[in-house]
């Protein structure tokens, strides 16, 4: 299966990954190879088979809605790119 350059740019944009035109062309060739591999799945008739999303049939555990962690924001924000007054800073979103 072959995908187009515009497909690559659309996927990259959905993935929030910047790609240059040169990168997009190389990526197109590699992704086409991967999708050809994936296409092999289509040869199998899977009508009536229940999808398997997990190895163990487990039910999610419930827990009480209580605070279990201390306030660790200082430790957790130590590695943040930009912090001010305990808030993460990002470029202005609303004009």
């Amino acid at each position: 299966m072959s995908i187009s350059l515009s497909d690559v740019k659309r996927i990259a944009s959905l993935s929030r990954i910047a790609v240059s035109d040169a990168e997009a062309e190389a990526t197109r060739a590699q992704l086409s190879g991967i999708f050809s591999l994936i296409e092999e799945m289509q040869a199998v008739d899977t009508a009536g088979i229940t999808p398997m999303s997990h190895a163990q049939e487990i039910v999610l555990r419930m827990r009480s809605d209580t605070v279990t962690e201390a306030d660790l924001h200082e430790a957790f924000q130590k590695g943040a790119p930009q912090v001010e007054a305990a808030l993460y800073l990002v470029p202005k979103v609303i004009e």
Partner: protein
Amino acid sequence: MFNSSLKALSAQLADRKISSVELTGEFLKRVDALNPVLNAFITVDPEASLAQARIADAMIASGRAGPLTGIPVAQKDIFCAKDWLTTCGSKMLSNFVSPYDAHVIERFNAAGAVNLGKTNMDEFAMGSSNETSFFGPVKNPWDIKAVPGGSSGGSAAAVAARMAPAATGTDTGGSIRQPAALCGISGIKPTYGLVSRYGMIAFASSLDQGGPMAKSAEDLAILLNAMVGFDGRDSTSLERQPENYAKDLERPLAGLRIGIPAEYFAEGLSLDVEKAVQAAISEYQKLGATIVEVSLPNTRLSIPVYYVLAPAEASSNLSRYDGVRYGYRSANYKDLAEMYENSRAEGFGAEVKRRIMVGTYVLSHGYYDAYYMQAQKLRRLIAADFAGSFEKCDVIMGPTSPSTAFDLGEKGDDPVQMYLSDIYTIAVNLAGLPGMSIPVGFGDNGRPVGLQIIGNYFSEAKMLNVAHQYQKATDWHSRMPNI
């Protein structure tokens, strides 16, 4: 000392023949000497390691020592360890000092083990050769022209070169077993859900599982005893009675039924690997095992299924790297969207970006049923193949990898060539079964061959028994590379 078993090291510590500070110091010296050649460690912090060794020595002195107290263990750099740089092999996390411990790290700390350092790995565990690491490839100690396998390549190389008595790994599609095979060591991926994923940086959450890597099955049992345990912070952690994984090591193998799947000995398997694996199976027959033919007809499909499901889960898991809360942020952006796009373009390597894009595509509108849903249906068929086989046998055996370690750069720029090398390991993750690899000889090029042992759910003690009895009868596991 460098080739001693964990039991022997523990006895020396208990008898005060050596202290943990001395033992840790000896291994740190060996890491210092060999790491410039092998690149197995990303971070070594002698002061932090020796501080833990002093705590261990105090535990030993006060009679509170367990089997791992004072033993240095190398930790794959996917496990968050408090105050340690934890990079997951990526530029994205190249500045990330973890503010907390993974459950696995907590367990080792509680056992009094010493963190010897953080080992190199494929970026975000995506790779089979350790060549995708931002910190450069690891070299195979048996031949530095060869890859160590991946993604836990640093851990495998560290144990093989005897830079560490033991190490941790994680296995999403073979990342413990394949590097163990290629480096001539032993490694086990437990049943999905036994080892908590809390603090283990996520790749594909329905497949990721941590496990130990060591010289022998006997050592793996000791490590597994420390690593397995219920943890409420991982929603898929299983609540089970604690089990002693060493309990069956000494059982004789008479009557053991070994399933041999024809699909694992078909086209694509190197002759030298086949020869070594067949010789190991003959050895098992001498030990009293019988051979049963089994069939895993959907083996071939496991690769396309995996390369839909794992990237789909990865694209979701890796969306958290946005340059806002931690990790790398690009210096070049005009607005928020550009900040995301440039941070991710610069922070991730090529393979990680490819997989995120594949995952995004298969989950996108209009393609979901054709790819993701179809892959999940095939996943059930793959799991059913194993269920059918285990009605006839106790363990399944075959090669871990179709060839011995390949050369660095050999697979070139074609990702699909690399993906095909995981043909024998991936299905085990899709089914959630335990799988292990033990060394059983060498290929024509002098590089190690691994035997894969696949067990039914929760049969780790049996698998370790099967591996240990072989290792009592042979000496492949105690061979060391000349480095």
